[in-house]
Protein backbone atom coordinates (compact mmCIF):
# COMPACT_ATOMS: atom_id res chain seq x y z
CA UNK A 1 0.00 0.00 0.00
CA UNK A 2 1.54 3.30 -1.10
CA UNK A 3 1.28 6.68 0.58
CA UNK A 4 -1.49 8.48 -1.27
CA UNK A 5 -0.86 12.21 -1.22
CA UNK A 6 -4.25 13.08 -2.66
CA UNK A 7 -5.96 11.03 0.04
CA UNK A 8 -3.79 12.60 2.70
CA UNK A 9 -4.78 16.06 1.53
CA UNK A 10 -8.44 15.04 1.54
CA UNK A 11 -8.21 14.20 5.25
CA UNK A 12 -6.80 17.62 6.16
CA UNK A 13 -10.14 19.48 6.53
CA UNK A 14 -11.62 16.78 8.77
CA UNK A 15 -8.59 16.59 11.03
CA UNK A 16 -8.04 20.33 11.04
CA UNK A 17 -11.69 20.72 12.00
CA UNK A 18 -10.74 19.38 15.45
CA UNK A 19 -7.84 21.77 15.93
CA UNK A 20 -10.10 24.04 17.97
CA UNK A 21 -10.78 21.27 20.47
CA UNK A 22 -7.07 20.37 20.65
CA UNK A 23 -6.08 23.99 21.23
CA UNK A 24 -8.85 24.52 23.77
CA UNK A 25 -7.82 21.48 25.79
CA UNK A 26 -4.13 22.39 25.56
CA UNK A 27 -4.58 26.06 26.44
CA UNK A 28 -6.90 25.51 29.39
CA UNK A 29 -4.70 22.67 30.66
CA UNK A 30 -1.57 24.85 30.41
CA UNK A 31 -3.23 27.55 32.48
CA UNK A 32 -4.66 25.01 34.92
CA UNK A 33 -1.40 23.10 35.31
CA UNK A 34 0.55 26.34 35.85
CA UNK A 35 -1.89 27.63 38.45
CA UNK A 36 -2.11 24.33 40.35
CA UNK A 37 1.65 23.76 40.01
CA UNK A 38 2.46 27.21 41.39
CA UNK A 39 0.02 26.65 44.25
CA UNK A 40 1.66 23.29 45.02
CA UNK A 41 5.10 24.88 45.04
CA UNK A 42 3.98 27.69 47.36
CA UNK A 43 2.51 25.15 49.80
CA UNK A 44 5.61 22.95 49.54
CA UNK A 45 7.81 25.94 50.40
CA UNK A 46 5.74 26.86 53.42
CA UNK A 47 6.82 23.57 54.99
CA UNK A 48 4.87 21.89 57.77
CA UNK A 49 2.41 19.05 57.24
CA UNK A 50 0.94 20.66 54.14
CA UNK A 51 4.41 20.90 52.64
CA UNK A 52 5.13 17.24 53.34
CA UNK A 53 1.83 16.20 51.81
CA UNK A 54 2.48 18.26 48.68
CA UNK A 55 5.95 16.75 48.36
CA UNK A 56 4.41 13.30 48.40
CA UNK A 57 1.69 14.38 46.00
CA UNK A 58 4.17 15.77 43.47
CA UNK A 59 6.24 12.58 43.55
CA UNK A 60 3.07 10.52 43.29
CA UNK A 61 1.85 12.46 40.27
CA UNK A 62 5.17 12.19 38.51
CA UNK A 63 5.42 8.46 39.13
CA UNK A 64 2.05 7.54 37.58
CA UNK A 65 1.05 7.46 33.90
CA UNK A 66 -1.28 10.17 32.71
CA UNK A 67 -3.66 7.56 31.25
CA UNK A 68 -4.20 6.13 34.72
CA UNK A 69 -5.23 9.57 35.93
CA UNK A 70 -7.67 10.03 33.08
CA UNK A 71 -9.22 6.59 33.61
CA UNK A 72 -9.50 7.09 37.36
CA UNK A 73 -11.14 10.50 36.99
CA UNK A 74 -13.54 9.32 34.31
CA UNK A 75 -14.43 5.78 35.32
CA UNK A 76 -13.78 5.53 39.04
CA UNK A 77 -14.92 8.89 40.45
CA UNK A 78 -18.53 8.31 39.31
CA UNK A 79 -18.69 5.41 41.80
CA UNK A 80 -18.25 8.05 44.46
CA UNK A 81 -20.92 10.26 42.98
CA UNK A 82 -18.56 12.63 41.13
CA UNK A 83 -19.52 12.65 37.49
CA UNK A 84 -17.50 14.89 35.18
CA UNK A 85 -17.99 15.31 31.45
CA UNK A 86 -15.36 13.90 29.09
CA UNK A 87 -13.93 17.32 28.22
CA UNK A 88 -13.81 18.49 31.84
CA UNK A 89 -12.22 15.21 32.89
CA UNK A 90 -9.58 15.56 30.21
CA UNK A 91 -8.70 19.11 31.13
CA UNK A 92 -8.67 18.42 34.86
CA UNK A 93 -6.61 15.27 34.33
CA UNK A 94 -3.96 16.97 32.19
CA UNK A 95 -3.88 19.98 34.51
CA UNK A 96 -3.34 17.89 37.63
CA UNK A 97 -0.84 15.61 35.97
CA UNK A 98 1.34 18.36 34.54
CA UNK A 99 1.03 20.51 37.68
CA UNK A 100 3.42 18.07 39.33
CA UNK A 101 6.03 18.65 36.67
CA UNK A 102 5.51 22.39 36.56
CA UNK A 103 5.85 22.58 40.35
CA UNK A 104 9.36 21.16 39.91
CA UNK A 105 10.10 23.75 37.23
CA UNK A 106 8.80 26.54 39.48
CA UNK A 107 10.98 25.23 42.28
CA UNK A 108 14.09 25.52 40.13
CA UNK A 109 13.02 28.99 39.00
CA UNK A 110 12.53 30.21 42.56
CA UNK A 111 15.73 28.57 43.84
CA UNK A 112 17.66 30.53 41.22
CA UNK A 113 16.51 33.89 42.63
CA UNK A 114 19.15 35.35 44.97
CA UNK A 115 18.18 35.40 48.67
CA UNK A 116 18.70 39.14 48.70
CA UNK A 117 15.53 39.66 46.69
CA UNK A 118 13.32 38.21 49.40
CA UNK A 119 15.31 40.04 52.06
CA UNK A 120 14.90 43.37 50.28
CA UNK A 121 11.17 42.74 49.96
CA UNK A 122 10.86 41.88 53.64
CA UNK A 123 12.98 44.85 54.65
CA UNK A 124 10.57 47.10 52.74
CA UNK A 125 7.71 45.63 54.74
CA UNK A 126 6.10 43.65 51.92
CA UNK A 127 3.97 40.77 53.14
CA UNK A 128 4.31 37.20 51.90
CA UNK A 129 1.60 37.45 49.28
CA UNK A 130 2.79 40.76 47.81
CA UNK A 131 6.35 39.48 47.81
CA UNK A 132 5.31 36.33 45.97
CA UNK A 133 3.26 38.16 43.36
CA UNK A 134 5.41 41.22 42.72
CA UNK A 135 8.97 40.11 43.47
CA UNK A 136 9.30 36.33 43.26
CA UNK A 137 6.87 35.27 40.52
CA UNK A 138 8.07 37.68 37.80
CA UNK A 139 11.70 36.73 38.37
CA UNK A 140 10.78 33.06 38.48
CA UNK A 141 9.06 33.35 35.09
CA UNK A 142 12.18 34.91 33.65
CA UNK A 143 14.24 31.98 34.85
CA UNK A 144 11.94 29.25 33.58
CA UNK A 145 10.42 30.49 30.32
CA UNK A 146 12.25 27.80 28.31
CA UNK A 147 11.50 24.69 30.44
CA UNK A 148 7.96 25.92 30.99
CA UNK A 149 7.52 26.18 27.23
CA UNK A 150 8.73 22.60 26.89
CA UNK A 151 5.99 21.43 29.22
CA UNK A 152 3.42 23.45 27.32
CA UNK A 153 4.47 21.56 24.20
CA UNK A 154 4.21 18.31 26.19
CA UNK A 155 0.69 19.22 27.23
CA UNK A 156 -0.21 19.90 23.61
CA UNK A 157 1.17 16.51 22.63
CA UNK A 158 -0.72 14.82 25.47
CA UNK A 159 -4.11 16.00 24.22
CA UNK A 160 -4.58 12.82 22.10
CA UNK A 161 -4.86 10.85 25.35
CA UNK A 162 -8.31 12.38 25.56
CA UNK A 163 -9.29 10.08 22.71
CA UNK A 164 -9.80 7.37 25.34
CA UNK A 165 -12.58 9.55 26.74
CA UNK A 166 -13.98 10.12 23.24
CA UNK A 167 -13.16 13.83 23.26
CA UNK A 168 -13.15 14.79 19.58
CA UNK A 169 -9.60 16.10 19.18
CA UNK A 170 -7.30 15.85 16.17
CA UNK A 171 -5.73 12.45 16.64
CA UNK A 172 -9.14 10.97 17.45
CA UNK A 173 -10.43 12.30 14.14
CA UNK A 174 -7.44 10.81 12.35
CA UNK A 175 -8.19 7.41 13.88
CA UNK A 176 -11.84 7.73 12.89
CA UNK A 177 -10.76 8.23 9.27
CA UNK A 178 -8.32 5.36 9.54
CA UNK A 179 -10.85 2.89 10.84
CA UNK A 180 -13.36 3.88 8.17
CA UNK A 181 -10.91 3.67 5.26
CA UNK A 182 -8.33 1.18 6.58
CA UNK A 183 -5.64 3.67 5.63
CA UNK A 184 -3.57 4.72 8.63
CA UNK A 185 -0.48 6.31 7.16
CA UNK A 186 -2.14 9.34 5.61
CA UNK A 187 -4.42 10.63 8.42
CA UNK A 188 -1.82 9.94 11.11
CA UNK A 189 0.87 11.72 9.09
CA UNK A 190 -1.41 14.70 8.61
CA UNK A 191 -2.23 14.82 12.34
CA UNK A 192 1.46 14.49 13.17
CA UNK A 193 2.41 17.35 10.88
CA UNK A 194 -0.24 19.62 12.35
CA UNK A 195 1.05 18.84 15.86
CA UNK A 196 4.57 19.56 14.67
CA UNK A 197 3.48 22.94 13.32
CA UNK A 198 1.69 23.84 16.55
CA UNK A 199 4.64 22.79 18.68
CA UNK A 200 6.99 24.92 16.59
CA UNK A 201 4.65 27.88 16.97
CA UNK A 202 4.60 27.49 20.75
CA UNK A 203 8.40 27.24 20.88
CA UNK A 204 8.69 30.38 18.81
CA UNK A 205 6.27 32.25 21.04
CA UNK A 206 8.18 31.17 24.15
CA UNK A 207 11.47 32.33 22.63
CA UNK A 208 9.93 35.71 21.96
CA UNK A 209 8.54 35.87 25.48
CA UNK A 210 11.91 34.94 26.93
CA UNK A 211 13.59 37.82 25.13
CA UNK A 212 10.94 40.22 26.33
CA UNK A 213 11.08 38.98 29.93
CA UNK A 214 14.85 39.27 30.07
CA UNK A 215 14.51 42.96 29.34
CA UNK A 216 17.60 45.11 29.20
CA UNK A 217 20.36 43.29 31.05
CA UNK A 218 23.34 45.37 30.03
CA UNK A 219 24.18 49.01 30.09
Amino acid at each position, binding site marked *: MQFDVAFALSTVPTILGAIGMTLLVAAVSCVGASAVGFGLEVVRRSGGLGGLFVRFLIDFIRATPVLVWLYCLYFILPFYGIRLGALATGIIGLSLYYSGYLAEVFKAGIDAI*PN*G*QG*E*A*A*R*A*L*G*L*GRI*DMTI*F*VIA*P*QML*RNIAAPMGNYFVSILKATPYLAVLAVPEMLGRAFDIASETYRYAEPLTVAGLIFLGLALLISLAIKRLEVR*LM*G*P*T*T*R
Partner: protein
Amino acid sequence: MAHSDDSPAVQITSLNKWYGAFHVLQEVNLTIPSGSRVVICGPSGSGKSTLIRCLNGLEAYQQGTVTLGTVPLGDNARETALARRQTGMVFQSFNLFPHLTVLSNCTLALRRVLSMPRKEAESLARHFLEKVRIPEQADKYPAQLSGGQQQRVAIARALCMNPRLMLFDEPTSALDPEMVKEVLDVMTGLAHEGMTMICVTHEMGFAREVADQVVFMDQGSIVEQASPMTFFTTPSHPRAQSFLNTLLH
Protein backbone atom coordinates in the same frame (compact mmCIF):
# COMPACT_ATOMS: atom_id res chain seq x y z
CA MET B 1 13.03 64.13 58.51
CA ALA B 2 14.09 63.18 62.04
CA HIS B 3 11.20 61.99 64.17
CA SER B 4 11.34 63.61 67.55
CA ASP B 5 11.01 61.08 70.30
CA ASP B 6 12.53 60.74 73.72
CA SER B 7 13.07 57.00 73.62
CA PRO B 8 16.27 55.80 71.96
CA ALA B 9 15.98 54.75 68.32
CA VAL B 10 17.36 51.33 69.15
CA GLN B 11 17.86 49.55 72.45
CA ILE B 12 19.65 46.20 72.33
CA THR B 13 19.86 44.28 75.57
CA SER B 14 21.78 41.06 76.22
CA LEU B 15 21.43 39.90 72.65
CA ASN B 16 22.66 36.37 71.99
CA LYS B 17 22.50 34.40 68.79
CA TRP B 18 23.80 31.02 67.78
CA TYR B 19 24.19 29.40 64.36
CA GLY B 20 24.05 25.82 65.55
CA ALA B 21 26.92 25.59 68.01
CA PHE B 22 28.55 28.80 66.78
CA HIS B 23 27.90 31.67 69.17
CA VAL B 24 27.73 34.47 66.62
CA LEU B 25 26.45 37.27 68.90
CA GLN B 26 27.51 37.24 72.55
CA GLU B 27 25.80 39.45 75.14
CA VAL B 28 25.49 42.46 72.87
CA ASN B 29 24.24 45.61 74.59
CA LEU B 30 23.87 48.81 72.64
CA THR B 31 21.79 51.97 72.93
CA ILE B 32 21.43 54.18 69.92
CA PRO B 33 19.84 57.57 70.59
CA SER B 34 17.56 59.12 67.99
CA GLY B 35 19.46 61.17 65.47
CA SER B 36 22.80 59.53 66.10
CA ARG B 37 25.11 57.97 63.54
CA VAL B 38 26.77 54.76 64.56
CA VAL B 39 29.45 53.01 62.56
CA ILE B 40 29.99 49.35 63.32
CA CYS B 41 33.30 47.92 62.21
CA GLY B 42 35.40 44.90 62.87
CA PRO B 43 37.06 41.98 61.11
CA SER B 44 34.96 39.75 58.88
CA GLY B 45 33.07 37.13 60.84
CA SER B 46 32.83 39.39 63.87
CA GLY B 47 29.03 39.40 63.73
CA LYS B 48 28.50 43.01 62.65
CA SER B 49 26.24 42.21 59.68
CA THR B 50 24.35 39.66 61.74
CA LEU B 51 23.80 42.31 64.40
CA ILE B 52 22.20 44.87 62.13
CA ARG B 53 20.18 42.17 60.39
CA CYS B 54 18.70 41.37 63.81
CA LEU B 55 17.45 44.96 64.00
CA ASN B 56 14.82 44.52 61.30
CA GLY B 57 13.98 40.91 61.82
CA LEU B 58 15.94 39.51 58.87
CA GLU B 59 17.75 37.32 61.39
CA ALA B 60 16.14 35.64 64.35
CA TYR B 61 17.94 35.52 67.69
CA GLN B 62 17.63 33.22 70.65
CA GLN B 63 18.14 35.52 73.65
CA GLY B 64 17.84 39.15 74.53
CA THR B 65 15.64 42.01 73.41
CA VAL B 66 15.71 44.52 70.59
CA THR B 67 13.46 47.56 70.88
CA LEU B 68 13.00 49.98 68.02
CA GLY B 69 11.62 53.21 69.39
CA THR B 70 8.99 51.88 71.74
CA VAL B 71 8.19 48.73 69.77
CA PRO B 72 9.88 45.51 70.85
CA LEU B 73 10.84 43.14 68.04
CA GLY B 74 9.74 39.67 68.79
CA ASP B 75 7.56 36.73 68.09
CA ASN B 76 4.59 38.99 67.47
CA ALA B 77 4.47 39.22 63.68
CA ARG B 78 2.43 42.41 63.68
CA GLU B 79 4.81 44.29 65.93
CA THR B 80 7.75 43.02 63.91
CA ALA B 81 6.10 44.25 60.72
CA LEU B 82 5.44 47.62 62.36
CA ALA B 83 9.01 47.93 63.59
CA ARG B 84 10.29 46.87 60.19
CA ARG B 85 8.24 49.56 58.50
CA GLN B 86 10.12 52.17 60.51
CA THR B 87 13.45 50.79 59.35
CA GLY B 88 15.10 51.19 55.98
CA MET B 89 17.85 48.84 54.93
CA VAL B 90 20.57 49.13 52.31
CA PHE B 91 22.43 45.97 51.37
CA GLN B 92 25.95 45.31 50.18
CA SER B 93 24.64 43.77 46.94
CA PHE B 94 21.97 46.48 46.37
CA ASN B 95 19.19 43.89 45.97
CA LEU B 96 17.20 46.04 43.59
CA PHE B 97 14.36 44.21 41.86
CA PRO B 98 15.82 43.55 38.38
CA HIS B 99 12.47 43.16 36.63
CA LEU B 100 11.21 46.59 37.72
CA THR B 101 12.29 50.05 36.60
CA VAL B 102 14.08 52.29 39.05
CA LEU B 103 10.83 54.17 39.65
CA SER B 104 8.84 50.97 40.25
CA ASN B 105 11.53 49.72 42.61
CA CYS B 106 10.84 52.81 44.69
CA THR B 107 7.04 52.76 44.44
CA LEU B 108 6.34 49.04 45.00
CA ALA B 109 6.30 49.16 48.80
CA LEU B 110 4.60 52.56 48.85
CA ARG B 111 1.74 51.16 46.82
CA ARG B 112 1.48 47.67 48.29
CA VAL B 113 2.36 48.34 51.94
CA LEU B 114 1.14 51.90 52.43
CA SER B 115 -1.63 51.66 49.76
CA MET B 116 -0.51 54.97 48.30
CA PRO B 117 -2.12 55.97 44.97
CA ARG B 118 0.19 55.59 41.97
CA LYS B 119 0.61 59.29 41.22
CA GLU B 120 1.44 60.21 44.78
CA ALA B 121 3.87 57.30 45.09
CA GLU B 122 5.61 58.23 41.87
CA SER B 123 6.04 61.86 42.82
CA LEU B 124 7.42 60.85 46.21
CA ALA B 125 9.80 58.40 44.53
CA ARG B 126 10.97 61.06 42.09
CA HIS B 127 11.59 63.39 45.01
CA PHE B 128 13.94 60.87 46.64
CA LEU B 129 15.60 59.96 43.34
CA GLU B 130 16.37 63.63 43.00
CA LYS B 131 17.76 63.61 46.51
CA VAL B 132 20.20 60.81 45.62
CA ARG B 133 20.96 62.72 42.41
CA ILE B 134 19.70 60.34 39.76
CA PRO B 135 16.26 61.64 38.78
CA GLU B 136 17.08 61.06 35.10
CA GLN B 137 17.41 57.30 35.60
CA ALA B 138 13.85 56.77 36.83
CA ASP B 139 12.67 54.81 33.81
CA LYS B 140 15.73 52.60 33.42
CA TYR B 141 16.19 49.09 34.75
CA PRO B 142 18.76 48.35 37.48
CA ALA B 143 21.00 46.42 35.07
CA GLN B 144 21.38 49.57 33.00
CA LEU B 145 22.92 51.48 35.90
CA SER B 146 26.39 51.50 37.40
CA GLY B 147 26.93 49.97 40.84
CA GLY B 148 27.07 53.36 42.49
CA GLN B 149 23.84 54.43 40.82
CA GLN B 150 22.15 51.17 41.83
CA GLN B 151 23.15 51.65 45.44
CA ARG B 152 21.80 55.19 45.38
CA VAL B 153 18.51 53.84 44.03
CA ALA B 154 18.50 51.36 46.89
CA ILE B 155 18.93 54.25 49.34
CA ALA B 156 16.11 56.19 47.67
CA ARG B 157 13.90 53.08 47.76
CA ALA B 158 14.43 52.76 51.50
CA LEU B 159 13.91 56.48 52.13
CA CYS B 160 10.55 56.41 50.33
CA MET B 161 9.10 54.48 53.26
CA ASN B 162 9.97 57.40 55.57
CA PRO B 163 12.01 55.31 58.00
CA ARG B 164 13.04 56.51 61.45
CA LEU B 165 16.19 54.47 61.20
CA MET B 166 18.44 53.56 58.30
CA LEU B 167 20.56 50.42 58.36
CA PHE B 168 23.51 50.15 55.98
CA ASP B 169 25.15 46.76 55.62
CA GLU B 170 28.53 47.39 53.97
CA PRO B 171 26.92 49.65 51.36
CA THR B 172 30.15 50.39 49.50
CA SER B 173 31.94 47.03 49.71
CA ALA B 174 30.68 45.79 46.35
CA LEU B 175 31.49 49.02 44.52
CA ASP B 176 34.36 49.99 42.29
CA PRO B 177 36.56 52.50 44.11
CA GLU B 178 35.53 55.43 41.95
CA MET B 179 31.88 54.88 42.83
CA VAL B 180 32.33 54.71 46.59
CA LYS B 181 32.37 58.46 46.96
CA GLU B 182 29.03 59.13 45.27
CA VAL B 183 27.32 56.72 47.67
CA LEU B 184 29.14 58.04 50.74
CA ASP B 185 28.20 61.59 49.73
CA VAL B 186 24.53 60.65 49.75
CA MET B 187 24.92 58.97 53.13
CA THR B 188 26.75 61.96 54.53
CA GLY B 189 23.95 64.21 53.32
CA LEU B 190 21.42 62.04 55.12
CA ALA B 191 23.46 62.18 58.30
CA HIS B 192 23.56 65.96 58.19
CA GLU B 193 19.77 66.02 57.95
CA GLY B 194 19.59 64.19 61.26
CA MET B 195 18.65 60.70 60.11
CA THR B 196 19.41 58.00 62.65
CA MET B 197 21.88 55.71 60.92
CA ILE B 198 23.66 52.49 61.70
CA CYS B 199 26.36 51.62 59.19
CA VAL B 200 28.44 48.52 58.97
CA THR B 201 31.38 49.76 56.96
CA HIS B 202 35.13 49.75 56.57
CA GLU B 203 35.10 53.31 55.26
CA MET B 204 37.05 54.85 58.11
CA GLY B 205 37.06 58.27 56.48
CA PHE B 206 33.27 58.22 56.57
CA ALA B 207 33.32 57.05 60.20
CA ARG B 208 35.66 59.83 61.16
CA GLU B 209 33.61 62.51 59.42
CA VAL B 210 30.06 61.40 60.08
CA ALA B 211 29.81 59.02 63.03
CA ASP B 212 29.22 60.13 66.56
CA GLN B 213 29.91 56.62 67.85
CA VAL B 214 32.16 53.88 66.54
CA VAL B 215 31.39 50.36 67.68
CA PHE B 216 34.13 47.79 67.21
CA MET B 217 33.12 44.14 67.20
CA ASP B 218 35.23 41.03 67.39
CA GLN B 219 34.15 37.40 67.66
CA GLY B 220 30.52 38.27 68.29
CA SER B 221 31.06 40.84 71.02
CA ILE B 222 31.30 44.60 71.18
CA VAL B 223 34.83 45.10 72.46
CA GLU B 224 35.08 48.84 72.07
CA GLN B 225 32.63 51.67 71.78
CA ALA B 226 33.89 55.22 71.55
CA SER B 227 33.69 58.52 69.74
CA PRO B 228 35.55 58.47 66.41
CA MET B 229 38.15 60.81 67.86
CA THR B 230 38.98 58.44 70.70
CA PHE B 231 38.63 55.30 68.59
CA PHE B 232 41.02 56.43 65.89
CA THR B 233 43.62 58.13 68.08
CA THR B 234 43.69 56.09 71.27
CA PRO B 235 41.87 52.78 70.84
CA SER B 236 42.00 50.95 74.14
CA HIS B 237 41.46 47.36 73.10
CA PRO B 238 44.45 45.57 71.51
CA ARG B 239 42.23 43.96 68.87
CA ALA B 240 40.93 47.37 67.83
CA GLN B 241 44.51 48.62 67.66
CA SER B 242 45.60 45.77 65.40
CA PHE B 243 42.44 46.15 63.26
CA LEU B 244 43.18 49.84 62.72
CA ASN B 245 46.79 49.01 61.91
CA THR B 246 45.77 46.57 59.17
CA LEU B 247 43.40 49.16 57.70
CA LEU B 248 46.01 51.88 57.64
CA HIS B 249 48.76 49.78 56.12
